[in-house]
């Protein structure tokens, strides 16, 4: 589903422009909210895929996203609680939430192979964009050492998920 992909990529680019276009740094409190929201929207999409996907590999991927991103969010929440940081909304976290909501709405209208393909296409785009945000903004801008360490620690999971999603994308395209 090219439409959902384009909307998502557009949303993230907009988010990047709005929040970081002027070279404005994001604060740790904003990073915390971006991390929680980014994980949560992928958990929500994964839960939908657990119930709606037809291809068993796509269904399993959805389950994996729910489990892995829940694990990451648990650690993120534990860390911000320990650091007494209150996650703070920003243009980026709001755009992420909006993009996630729009993706869910688009996916809910689909079924069968069309759902599987749209979900996986979006997962590829999502993980690419989050990796880009991690590398260009979130990791460089994080000031608290523990927060930075958490971002560095979760990065390989996004790389694995992206490769996994790309494998499924190629498999579905056959």
């Amino acid at each position, binding site marked *: 589903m090219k439409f959902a992909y384009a909307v998502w990529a557009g949303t993230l680019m907009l988010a990047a422009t709005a929040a970081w276009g002027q070279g404005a740094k994001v604060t740790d409190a904003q990073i915390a909210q971006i991390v929680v929201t980014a994980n949560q929207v992928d958990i929500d999409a994964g839960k939908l895929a657990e119930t709606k996907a037809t291809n068993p590999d796509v269904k399993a991927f959805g389950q994996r996203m729910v489990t*892995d991103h829940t*694990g990451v969010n648990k650690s993120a929440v534990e860390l911000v609680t320990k650091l007494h940081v209150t996650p703070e909304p920003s243009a980026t976290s709001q755009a992420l939430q909006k993009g996630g909501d729009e993706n869910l709405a688009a996916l809910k209208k689909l079924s069968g192979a069309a759902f599987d393909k749209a979900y996986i296409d979006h997962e590829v785009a999502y993980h690419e964009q989050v990796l880009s945000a991690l590398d260009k903004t979130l990791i460089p801008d994080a000031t608290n050492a523990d927060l930075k360490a958490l971002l560095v*620690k979760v990065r390989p999971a996004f790389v*694995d998920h992206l*490769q*996994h999603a790309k494998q499924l994308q190629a498999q579905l395209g056959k």
Partner: protein
Amino acid sequence: MLGSAALASSSAAEPKTKTHTVVIENMQFNPATLTVAKGERVVWVNKDLFPHTVTADNKAFDSKDVAANASWTYVAAKAGEYPYGCTLHPTMKAKLIVK
């Protein structure tokens, strides 16, 4: 009392089996290649934030899900080379060599 006495005598009587540790962290098995002698133990410790598995490509061993901060122990019973990976995360690959 009985239990601890039995435990103490058994650990004193038997030579300790060597135990090797593989750390699972940042979506990698470390060390990626491990060579052990037959009969030795290997403990995989999952330091990631979510479950992994330790599964031989030929299914000679399969931990099933190992939760975050949990570990799984395997006694290397049979000689051979065992490429293995995590079935949940297809990019994770490693090798156990049993001499």
